[in-house]
């Protein structure tokens, strides 16, 4: 098959005819030639359209649409001219932008967690200070009276919950979580070897769970048989 030559007028016109019919194939030279002669292509395709319209029995469209369009395009502002710079972001670009945002959030979270961890690990205060891992809760009046007696504290005149609570600091409800020297004094006597200590709050708190058959009447016996002696 003869290859079209850009400088062959007949071949170029035939290429225009085929191109107008969507039947051009592999004719880069013809396209380049058409780009160099847009006016010629314009005139030729106008004729083609006149012929097609007449064969189909349609009306003639002979107005210069290309000229009207170009007049309007000339008036378009520069930022509305299509160019590679004006290309709307493709999904890949949006994906990258999203990844950057997610990375920043992840980095911030990591930094925050690391900072908190470092602060806690380098703190002078022993771990557990201010934290009450096990709180004595739901004590009955009898429980509090038992605790007061076992801790060698003054027995309140009235062993009412309000009176007991008033006599104890909030930390006294916490189970010691550290065996450091600073906290040795807060440990129960049975743990430190001192005999004068009171009852283990854990025992007092959990005796119902450990031995529910004792009920509320035998906390002393429960404490006595817990192996401290």
């Amino acid at each position, binding site marked *: 098959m003869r290859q079209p030559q850009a400088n062959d007028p007949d071949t170029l016109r035939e290429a225009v*005819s085929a191109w107008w019919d969507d039947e051009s*194939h592999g004719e880069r030279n013809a396209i380049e030639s058409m780009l160099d002669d847009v006016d010629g292509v314009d005139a030729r395709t106008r004729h083609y359209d006149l012929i097609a319209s007449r064969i189909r*029995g349609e009306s003639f469209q002979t107005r210069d649409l290309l000229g009207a369009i170009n007049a309007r395009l000339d008036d378009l502002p520069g930022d509305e001219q299509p160019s590679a710079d004006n290309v709307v972001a493709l999904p890949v670009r949006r994906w990258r932008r999203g990844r950057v945002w997610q990375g920043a959030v992840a980095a911030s979270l990591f930094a925050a967690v690391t900072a908190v961890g470092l602060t806690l690990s380098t703190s002078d205060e022993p771990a557990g200070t201010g934290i009450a891992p096990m709180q004595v809760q739901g004590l009955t009046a009898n429980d509090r009276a038992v605790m007061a007696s076992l801790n060698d504290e003054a027995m309140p005149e009235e062993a009412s919950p309000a009176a007991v609570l008033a006599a104890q600091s909030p930390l006294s409800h916490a189970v010691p979580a550290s065996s450091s020297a600073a906290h040795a004094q807060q440990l129960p006597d049975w743990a430190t070897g001192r005999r004068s200590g009171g009852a283990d709050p854990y025992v007092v708190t959990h005796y119902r769970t450990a031995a529910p058959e004792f009920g509320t009447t035998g906390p002393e016996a429960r404490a006595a048989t817990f192996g401290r002696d």
Partner: protein
Amino acid sequence: MSAEETDKALVARARKGDRRAFDLLVLKYQHRVQRLIARYIRDPEQVFDLAQETFIKAYRALGRFRGDSAFYTWIYRIAVNTAKNQLAFDARGGYTVSLNSGGSDESDEPMIEPEALRDGGTPDALAATDELRKGIDQAISALPEDLRTALTLREMEGLSYEEIATVMDCPIGTVRSRIFRAREAIEQSIGPLKGD
């Protein structure tokens, strides 16, 4: 390079600022776009304006044309949306000049010749259009049978070159040549009528 690839190559050049490439796309699709819009809008002046609008929109949106679809489907979609928007505007009471308003909206009459309308439908303009029409008819009648058949199958039936080649039992290259030569012969015939 297929026709679709050619269009995409032209789009790529137009996006880089080559207006000639966009001109070629307009030349190739302007008539199809106007015919498509004319299926929605009866007023030829409005069809012309909406076709302009379609290509202006396409030009401004070239950066968003990713090439997922063919250019012609993209431009057709813009044209249809533009025409439908106009219909919706008209339905809301938008004022438009319908030069065909005197006829029935449901009729299938062809559009009035824009040239004649623009010229006020003067007898001279109508006569010129009629003369051009007759000139084309005569030129087609004078074509050799094989050229006329190839051109008619293409323009009347919309067959592809390959389909025409099958119908006429000849190579595709021959079909391409016959259609080209038929157009050349008619063009030479009507040239004087058009004042070229």
